[in-house]
């Protein structure tokens, strides 16, 4: 379901942390709610965003969703192949569907994030 090694935000993003960098994407639940993704708008390398601020957007046919930073950071890498294959966001949200890699500004912000189990509980309570 939702991989153990990642942390999750209540905005339905995930972050996989290695040292002071993190890989960010959207969760299985998020892509299900969106439907078939048709377009992704991502920031540039070097852009900086605070936690919970929008760093881009993802579109399905009938909806647009803002992408919100799980933690404050600077973009160090952007998944360029996903723009040509937005379907990967649906088929492999935790693997090929990664969106950006960031340099984490404030590691203490992980306190606001959820474990896989806590995230699953959160989704269940929201339903």
């Amino acid at each position, binding site marked *: 379901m939702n991989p153990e090694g990642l942390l999750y935000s209540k905005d339905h993003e995930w972050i996989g942390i290695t040292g002071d960098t993190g890989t960010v994407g959207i969760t299985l639940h998020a892509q299900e709610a969106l439907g078939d993704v048709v377009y992704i708008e991502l920031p540039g390398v070097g852009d900086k965003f605070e936690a919970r601020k929008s760093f881009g957007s993802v579109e399905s046919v009938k*909806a*647009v969703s803002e992408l919100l930073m799980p933690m404050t950071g600077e973009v160090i890498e952007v998944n360029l192949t996903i723009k040509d294959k937005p379907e990967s966001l649906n088929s492999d949200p935790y693997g090929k569907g990664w969106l950006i890699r960031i340099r984490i500004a404030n590691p203490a912000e992980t306190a606001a994030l959820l474990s896989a189990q806590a995230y699953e509980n959160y989704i269940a309570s929201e339903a």
Partner: protein
Amino acid sequence: MRYLPSSEADRKGMLEAIGIESVEQLFAGIPESLRLRRPLDIPHGLTEPELIRFFRGAAGRNATDFTSFLGAGVYRHHIPVVIDALISRSEFYTAYTPYQAEIAQGTLQAIFEFQTYITQLTGLDVANASLYDGSTGLGEAILMAHRITKRNKVLIARSVHPEYRAVVATYARTLGIEIQLIAFTESGRMDAAAIGKAMDETIAAVVVQSPNFFGTIEENAEIASIAHKHGALSIVNVCEAMSLGILKPPQDADIVVGEGQSLGIPMNFGGPHLGFLATRETFVRQMPGRLVGMGEDQQGRRAFVLTLSTREQHIRREKATSNICTNQSLCALMCAIYLATMGPKGLRQIAEQNIQKTHYAVQQIRARTKHSILFSGPRFNEFVILLKEDYASRAPRFMRSHIIPGLHIARFYPELGNSLLVCVTETTSRDQIDALIKGLE
């Protein structure tokens, strides 16, 4: 009332089904203090023969027996009879917006064809399904340039249609977009050097009209190059779309926007007309308005559908590229039928006649009258006469001969004084041109 199909018996049955005695009970939720307890003070209902008589009378008080040389953004061209015959089919004119693709393939395919025709005429990659008209289209184009470049200033040629510039000013003012006007030269054309002087990294776009308000054809290549060097967009506005049938489309423009009324749509005292907007593929997601795309249904059959809707107001709401919802769809269909009827050769032939008849008129004015032709630049079907004497002294004579010799443009360009903007199209006969010349002698 004949448009209300239910009989007394029907209504009674429906009231019973709902469980009430009268329709009045359905309005119980409206406070009595807000109820209108008198009849509306409007004329009493007319029967069909009375309506026809009334409107015939009103239409009769609009002169139809004048020879008109008016252009200035609204043009008199031959309109093939097939257009009205086809758009009078209720399948086209009483249909709703094609949100439900399965039962709207007629509208969707026709608009896809319209979009394609506009890309062919303008030489750009993609066109939308129409905007209200050329003037609001230009407003939208400027907002689009502002979104793309994130800059707040626009250079606009003063030879762009004055009413278009007025509309742009309204759109731009509240978003803090500054408009700087650039003067035209003696030839009537824009001077690329003047634009170069005003260009810098704060400019979102430079706007030129071709043929411009005076009928003069502009060269856009150098202007576009100057814009691009500074990261700005080149926008070309076209009021006389017929010109695209023979003139090279604006070179190197990023957005070509304009008015399609010349292509099969009646003048209608100013509306409804037809705004079109075409741009490069890379800007497609910044385009305002609806877009029809081609795709497939579940069985792999070719199908057309409204697409990239996430740009629009019903999804993006406050972040939409525009607030436009209803557009000019039926007029876009009229344009598509017009272009299908004319074909490339027919369109060219008509455009040629416009040029040739205009040329004849200009030559005759030079040869046989004492007035001069302002602006030496090349023209399509409009030109400006500088009258040797006061327009007011000429005007009564023209009225008596039932001729409207053109538009007196002092109201827009006071420095041009006694100048008339004259338009000659394929519908203007040699006799009519000769009568104009006689009136000017």
